[in-house]
């Protein structure tokens, strides 16, 4: 059963790194893994249980589904209920609770909602159903946005007139600046997401290190990737260096992927965005450019961005910022569980609370 990833899961090496980390005697550190895929991998491999008390890993705002505000879900549900529409979406959005229920509930009441694995499949649905309006739900960071841009571009080339995109795409840089500059958050270092970095490159992280004094390490998603990145990051933090290291060079280049960035920038432009649990951050989101307005579901269906509020008692905001752990939330594991989520962090399998709940804390 040889797999090219096997060396990154080598038990012997993992034990060596875990032992080395256990001997850590430096200052107490709070490191943030920015990305939901990291959160999931850390929980899945039980990485936290291998770290010494002095190194704390907190989860950041990098689960796109989790930071999507409830008004987005409300709009998606409203669109899904219109008889002429087919809503196409990734599966993770299905269970997010909106004010008038989730997409899953709308589907059970007869709404035509299709779960996709690739945004490009939505174009096929549109071609196959010329009499219906197909609305593709688009959330995600720099990793997924280029594919949505590609779908819009393709629709435009084909002249499809029954296809639109309801976008709530976000970008990483602004929110990372906000968190780095927030003294209540107090992050010593960032564990940067390999996927996003593969697109945007690593130069922005240098800026964060220099201007905000928060160093970082770009890491892959295998257990050995993560353990070695944590070890490198704690070393950098202890030496007080404001630098960035890329330990995921098998995928991430300093310049990123310019073609993907171009595709994204052709269709989308920077916009303000609301982050569930954190609030509005200027320039932290993406909106569809005017030239592609006929594919922008917000405009085509004249949807209003509503008020957004967090469920009472929900601590998602603080959890997304890493100032609280899931266990600190009074709803965690009681009213808020994966089969009936209250807050956003419990919804997606990459959400901090879902990961904690699923893979449990046993020390």
């Amino acid at each position, binding site marked *: 059963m040889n797999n090219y990833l096997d060396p990154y899961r080598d038990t012997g090496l993992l034990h060596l790194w875990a032992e080395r980390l256990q001997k850590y005697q430096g200052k107490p550190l709070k490191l943030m893994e920015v990305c939901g895929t990291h959160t999931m991998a850390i929980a899945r491999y039980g990485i936290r249980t291998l770290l010494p008390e002095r190194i704390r890993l907190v989860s950041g705002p990098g689960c796109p589904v989790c930071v999507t505000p409830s008004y987005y879900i409300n709009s998606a549900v409203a669109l899904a209920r219109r008889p002429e529409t087919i809503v196409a979406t990734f599966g993770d959005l299905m269970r997010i609770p909106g004010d008038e229920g989730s997409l899953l509930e709308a589907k059970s009441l007869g709404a035509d909602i299709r779960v996709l694995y690739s945004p490009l499949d939505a174009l096929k649905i549109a071609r196959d159903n010329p009499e219906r309006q197909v609305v593709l739900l688009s959330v995600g960071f720099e990793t997924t946005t280029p594919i949505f841009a590609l779908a819009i571009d393709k629709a435009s080339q084909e002249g499809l007139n029954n296809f639109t995109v309801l976008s709530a795409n976000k970008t990483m840089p602004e929110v990372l600046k906000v968190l780095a500059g927030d003294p209540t958050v107090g992050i010593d270092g960032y564990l940067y997401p390999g996927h996003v970095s593969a697109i945007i490159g690593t130069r922005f992280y240098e800026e964060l290190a220099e201007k905000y004094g928060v160093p970082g390490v770009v890491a892959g998603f295998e257990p050995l990737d993560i353990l070695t990145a944590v070890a490198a990051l704690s070393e950098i933090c202890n030496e007080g260096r404001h630098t960035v290291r890329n330990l995921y060079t098998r995928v991430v280049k300093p310049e990123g992927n310019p073609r993907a960035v171009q595709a994204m920038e052709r269709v989308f432009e920077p916009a303000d965005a609301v982050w569930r649990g954190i609030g509005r951050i200027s320039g932290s989101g993406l909106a569809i450019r005017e030239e592609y307005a006929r594919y922008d579901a917000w405009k085509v269906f004249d949807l209003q961005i509503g008020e957004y509020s967090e469920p009472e008692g929900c601590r998602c905001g603080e959890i997304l910022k890493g100032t609280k752990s899931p266990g600190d939330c009074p709803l965690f594991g009681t009213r808020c569980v994966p089969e009936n989520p209250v807050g956003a962090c419990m919804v997606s399998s990459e959400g901090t609370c879902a990961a904690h709940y699923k893979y449990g804390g*046993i020390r």
Partner: protein
Amino acid sequence: MTERITLAHGSGGKLTHQLIGRIFYPHFANDILQTGDDAAKLPVPAGTLAYTTDSFVITPLFFKGGDIGKLSVCGTVNDLATSGARPLALSCGFIIEEGFEISRLERIVSSMAETARSCGVRIVTGDTKVVPKGAADQLFINTSGIGIIPDGCHISASRAKPGDVVIVTGMIGDHGAAILLEREELHIAADIASDCAPLHYLVARVLADVPDIHVLRDPTRGGLASTLHEIALQSDTGILIWEKDIPVRPEVQGICELLGMDPLYLANEGKMVMVVPQENAGKVMEILQSDPLGKDSRIIGQVIREPAKRVLLETVTGAKRIVEMMTGDQLPRIC
């Protein structure tokens, strides 16, 4: 013109009888069924009767490694086998959507009959209903089965004891992954077939040499994780499994990583989880590995006292974490 099922085929009238006479009788052919009575009458040997039922709503109806007909026989035969029973007879109920092609119905019935023959079990009674277009998706099948449990056999999911060894009889997740790939929206090229297979002969071989098996359960919907959970709950014990020992095909592992799924939660249709006293484990493994259906069997864990009602996984990093029961569906209509 393509012949199709109409509402009249389910009316109980002339067309119903024609359909039974043309499709079901010739394939299922046995004297008990062909008496034509409403209830099957069959002699039952002495012993304890095992009785189970299962419904099959899988989509697509035909997939690599099987079809809904084969699945509907294997599923019920395997449920009987989890009690150590030798299957005796099956019933089948069809719910068919109006407009379904008769040639496809015949393919399914023929596959059921062939699987039943290979299992040494007869389909002795049945029922057919036709519902209007849209009231069901193509075709659903229910099968019930009875079997005879040999004397002295006391297999139950409540009998796992601390110290027992946990065995799985082969690669996990094949069925779930195969169905996932068959769904048209996925364009992934990988050679994975459903593991759909009857396991009662394999179980009988083990029981013949090692009667003292504590638990047998087939990890279908919800996968290995959910099955182990059920055992831990019913037995009021914990179960510890070792990630490095769980057999998963690289293709299945790859698909899971691509799509954010976990093989522990993927359905299997031709695997058993066995919990056996430690002293019997060697003998059981020897028998399993000598059989084509059990050649990839592995010891994957052990039953522990604490934490009770929990399943723990020791990951490749050496860390331990809790394995939760599946919430929601990884993929609906998998069986």
